[in-house]
């Protein structure tokens, strides 16, 4: 009998066992990246930039030319590389602490200059590598080691919405938010990141994909339960439509508390104003969370 392979490990994925925790989104995303790069046939002209965070050793898992960057500085490193190698396909892989906190300035200015590289922004609402501290993207009510009582917007602010912030700029050609949740979500993530790479290859500026990704370890699983209460809520809210703006599907990250409660009225209406203001005619945000 002749056996034909129906599924193979992507060529760009190295033969290494990954250090990620079980259930982590990073491992899935690494594999998706490898598949996309294989499919597009760009392995030999792709250069990756790794962040500081749980995905710091991207170069141990993807068989590409890859540079580490200092915490939050991936946009500057990617700028240096892509300016020097105009024909290359360059991408930066960044966590939410990396991109939305310490590296906020770098990403906003790289976006505004319209740098020619793809951003894969892995938002797991937490600082994974350092042990589960509050990130700028931590949800209201979500507990972490540095907000043990849950994030309180009164003193800690609301979760930063990077897609909305970046879409206020004119240069980015694509701003999308996807989630690594369930087969449909993963398929959409794959398709959207592939689209971002195709944009970059076509010379379009600064394609940016936010990937909502689980961090089971720091979402405080309870022994004996498959998912913590908070993780289950994350899943539920990541599917729910926004209660403030029906065109927006960022509900989990801006309008709702992590415990499912709706935010106080004045806050909601302020955000409503914000939301309609930040979606520009030109770039727009693709929401593929359904």
């Amino acid at each position, binding site marked *: 009998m002749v056996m034909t392979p129906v599924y193979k490990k992507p060529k760009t994925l190295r033969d290494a066992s990954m250090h990620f925790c079980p259930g982590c989104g990073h491992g899935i995303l690494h594999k998706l990246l490898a598949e996309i790069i294989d499919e597009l046939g760009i392995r*030999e002209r792709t*250069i990756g930039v790794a962040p500081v965070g749980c995905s710091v050793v991207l170069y141990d898992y993807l*068989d*590409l030319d*890859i540079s*580490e960057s200092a915490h939050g500085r991936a946009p*500057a490193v990617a700028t240096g590389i892509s*300016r*020097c190698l105009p024909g290359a396909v360059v991408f930066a892989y960044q966590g939410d602490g990396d991109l939305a906190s310490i590296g906020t*300035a770098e990403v906003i200015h790289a976006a505004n200059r319209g740098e020619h590289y793809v951003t894969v922004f892995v938002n797991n609402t937490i600082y994974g590598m350092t042990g589960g501290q509050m990130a700028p993207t931590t949800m209201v009510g979500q507990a972490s080691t540095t907000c043990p009582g849950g994030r309180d917007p009164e003193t800690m602010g609301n979760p930063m919405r990077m897609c909305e912030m970046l879409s206020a700029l004119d240069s980015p050609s694509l701003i999308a938010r996807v989630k690594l949740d369930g087969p449909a979500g993963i398929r959409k993530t794959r398709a959207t990141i592939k689209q971002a790479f195709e944009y970059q290859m076509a010379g379009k500026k600064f394609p940016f994909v936010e990937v909502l990704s689980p961090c089971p370890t720091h979402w405080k699983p309870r022994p004996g339960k498959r998912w913590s209460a908070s993780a289950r809520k994350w899943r539920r809210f990541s599917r729910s439509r926004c209660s403030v703006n029906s065109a927006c599907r960022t509900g989990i990250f801006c309008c709702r508390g992590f415990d499912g409660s709706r935010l106080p009225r004045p806050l909601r209406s302020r955000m409503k104003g914000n939301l309609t203001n930040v979606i520009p005619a030109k770039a727009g945000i693709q929401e593929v969370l359904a």
Partner: protein
Amino acid sequence: MGKRVLMNGNEALGEGAIRGGCDCYFGYPITPQNELTAYMAVNMPQREKVFVQAESEVAAINMVYGGAAAGKRAMTSSSSPGISLKQEGISYMAGAQLPGLIVNVQRAGPGLGDIQPSQADYFQAVKGGGHGDYRLLVLAPASVQETHDFAAQSFDLADKYRMPVMILTDGRLGQMMEPFELWEGKIETFDKPWALIGAKGRSGNAIHSYWGQAPGLEIVNLALQEKYRLIEKEEVRFDTYKLDDAELMLVAYGTSARLCREAVDLACADGIKAGLLRPITLWPFPSREISARLARMKKVLTVEMSAGQMVEDVRLAVNGAVPVEFYGRLGGAVMTVREIYEKIKAIA
């Protein structure tokens, strides 16, 4: 012989870097180095090279990191407060063994300080500045000609040793105009099999300073130290003036060395046997060169536009053999030749 031109030190540095093969420049405005960024903004694009005004010094040094990782000759320039911001990136470059040129046109500190010239960043340049066990190869020019030449030569040094090189000038050297000869030397080319240019027919290269598993990081550190020992042996540069029959050795670099030369002339005219040793590489420091000349010396005098930073290295080199005196002006003040001459007379 190169064509003779007139420029200020900052512009001469930019032209030198371009002649030295600079592929990409990343900068951020700060006085007193702005002429250099402006020079590159005009001249890099004209030669189809990369020029980017970054959003901060932090971003600029990380763009240098990216350019260097791509195998290019990359540089940035700034002045003291901006160099403080670059320290993280400099440490990463040292750790990842990336070549590159960093220029510090020193101004007075601490804090915002002032835009007047200073030499108070010696410690920062020579003793680390960023975190970890690393060194920079630090070149200290004392004229517009040297500023130009060192910029041209710095990329060869950086590529040869795969490490960042710093040119340490100051606001006076950067702003003053002097005629000089354009550098027409030859650039060396270095194979960079480690560079990130796309993994054609090979497995992927990685540029990183993270070494999660022991003993990797200690091995990397030991290799760095071995490289630094080699540089200490091979790359020390210094200059002397009337030192052969001197009994008082002045030690000074950059702007203060220029002033010391004139003070030495005044002293010699008075019959005082003074001479000057001018370190050109601040790291590697010419320690052996100083200690080898102590036999005839009665005293050593270090002159700096700081509270006394290089004098610590001079004292280590002298190691108690003769007294080491110090004269310095602080906070952007530049000493006069007369002041140095008076100090010489007082201690001779």
